């Protein structure tokens, strides 16, 4: 397998981008990444997008978007694993280069979610759950995570205040990220006073509906050296992917996110790293409980200690393992297909020492954890700066 490096990053400001169609949002991020890398063309394009069909009525994105970027004719692959589509696009690009099929790959993620009303968006997102046997009965995504939260609370004594503190921390980080959708100050009280969406989860426990795109340019390390880069070289040293039943009814243990644990084990093994080696991590906090369960599944905290860890400040910038310095899905926004790529954009920025006010001092090794549905898939990457 060949060594792979990230040589360019780009993203658009996340938010409700009423003026822009999917193709323009995507191209904004793609061109920014190509410019950052200083390359004009690539050997392959990967695109993570969950559901452009349901959100915008447009499929066949691979060809549409290659053309939009002025790269007509370049091979392009769209991949889908619900909200983990972006992470899967990164892994697919990584694999293209590692296998020697390409030297330079443009990895992208995109979702345009605001061209449909709330009910249609809820329906589109709901397709990541088992529609036939669970969605049929009226369960929603917040509802599925609420069920996982209820079990975590009963088994470990996790509190709604600890859940709220995840939102407080991530919104505080998001205020330092100019690309974030929200720059709100959120308090434990404001989370607990927000509308109940699915007991015990409140509105401010949930990530928002967002338009956005993010992009990376990957190259083989040999190619990256040939191109001659002024910025520090960031290598992708570990990549792990795992699946699980999307129906909660078929999960072996509802107290953990097994796909996250398995994907992390694979990424740690490839990189030759362990949790204690990681300086910071972007995790898939689509709901506050998801961040707590993800930090446990990644091995940063023992099962049940994810909630107390937030309370202790272990996951804040300056803490033992800073989690979601970008603001996470909670504050930065969650354009589902873009999220997994945007997580890597943040880690590369941190490893380059270019994260400004939210910089984690001395960060050398970072991790991203992207997740589909309620944990039916997960993609984990480890990135290291030279």
């Amino acid at each position: 397998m060949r060594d792979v490096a990230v040589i360019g990053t780009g993203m658009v400001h996340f938010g409700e981008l009423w003026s822009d169609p999917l193709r323009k949002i995507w191209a904004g991020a793609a061109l920014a990444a190509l410019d950052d890398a200083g390359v004009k063309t690539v050997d392959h394009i990967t695109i993570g997008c969950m559901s452009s069909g349901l959100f915008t009525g447009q499929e066949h994105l691979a060809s549409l978007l290659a053309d939009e970027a002025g790269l007509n004719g370049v091979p392009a692959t769209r991949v889908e694993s619900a909200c983990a589509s972006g992470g899967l696009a990164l892994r697919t690009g990584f694999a293209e280069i590692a296998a020697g099929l390409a030297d330079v790959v443009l990895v992208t993620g995109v979702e345009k979610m605001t061209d449909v009303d709330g009910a249609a968006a809820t329906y589109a997102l709901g397709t990541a759950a088992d529609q036939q046997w669970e969605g049929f009965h009226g369960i929603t995504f917040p509802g599925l995570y609420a069920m996982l939260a209820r079990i975590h609370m009963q088994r470990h004594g996790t509190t709604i205040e600890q859940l709220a503190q995840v939102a407080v921390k991530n919104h505080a980080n998001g205020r330092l990220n100019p690309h974030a959708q929200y720059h709100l100050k959120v308090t434990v009280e404001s989370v607990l006073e927000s509308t109940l969406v699915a007991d015990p989860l409140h509105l401010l426990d949930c990530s928002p509906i967002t338009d956005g795109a993010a992009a990376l340019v990957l190259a083989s390390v040999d190619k990256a050296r040939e191109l001659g880069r002024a910025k520090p070289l960031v290598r992708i040293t570990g990549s792990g992917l795992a699946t699980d039943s999307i129906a909660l009814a078929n999960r072996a243990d509802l107290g953990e996110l097994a796909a996250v644990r398995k994907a992390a084990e694979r990424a740690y093994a490839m990189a030759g790293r362990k949790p204690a080696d990681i300086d910071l991590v972007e995790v898939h906090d689509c709901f506050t409980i998801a961040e707590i369960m993800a930090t446990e599944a990644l091995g940063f905290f023992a099962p049940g200690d994810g909630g107390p860890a937030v309370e202790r400040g272990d996951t804040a910038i300056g803490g033992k393992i800073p989690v979601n310095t970008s603001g996470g899905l909670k504050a930065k926004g969650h354009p589902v297909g873009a999220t997994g790529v945007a997580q890597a954009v943040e880690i590369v920025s941190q490893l380059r020492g270019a994260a400004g006010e939210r910089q984690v001092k001395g960060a050398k090794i970072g991790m991203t954890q992207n997740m589909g549905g309620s944990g039916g898939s997960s993609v984990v990457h480890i990135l290291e700066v030279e």
Partner: protein
Amino acid sequence: MFSPAIAWREYPQRYRLEAARCTKCGKILYPPRLVCPQCGARTFETVVLPREGKVLTYTVVRVPPTGFSEQTPLPIALVELANGVRVMVQIADVADPESLTIGMPVRLEFRRINSDGEAGVIFYGHKAVRA
């Protein structure tokens, strides 16, 4: 997405709670599959699920998906039936959602789940009620 064809082909599971029991390892699959995820065998016999079970976890959906607004707030539970099979079902006839608890004994009853405007089909299935 619902259609008359979908409703029709799922009658055995939704109306009669038919599941498949692996003839090799005994695992019960609901809905049935072609291969047993536990032992890999591919032969099954039809069994009917028991109606008694207990709540493994639950929520009360306050922001409902399309078609459920009349039933909101909507208590939904993951129920473990007496034979260990787990099913996602609504909890019906709940006057006070605060009274729901993990471990609560329930019984499945045949009820109307939803009526779908576009397909013009009334969907029936099972809901849990306090046992």
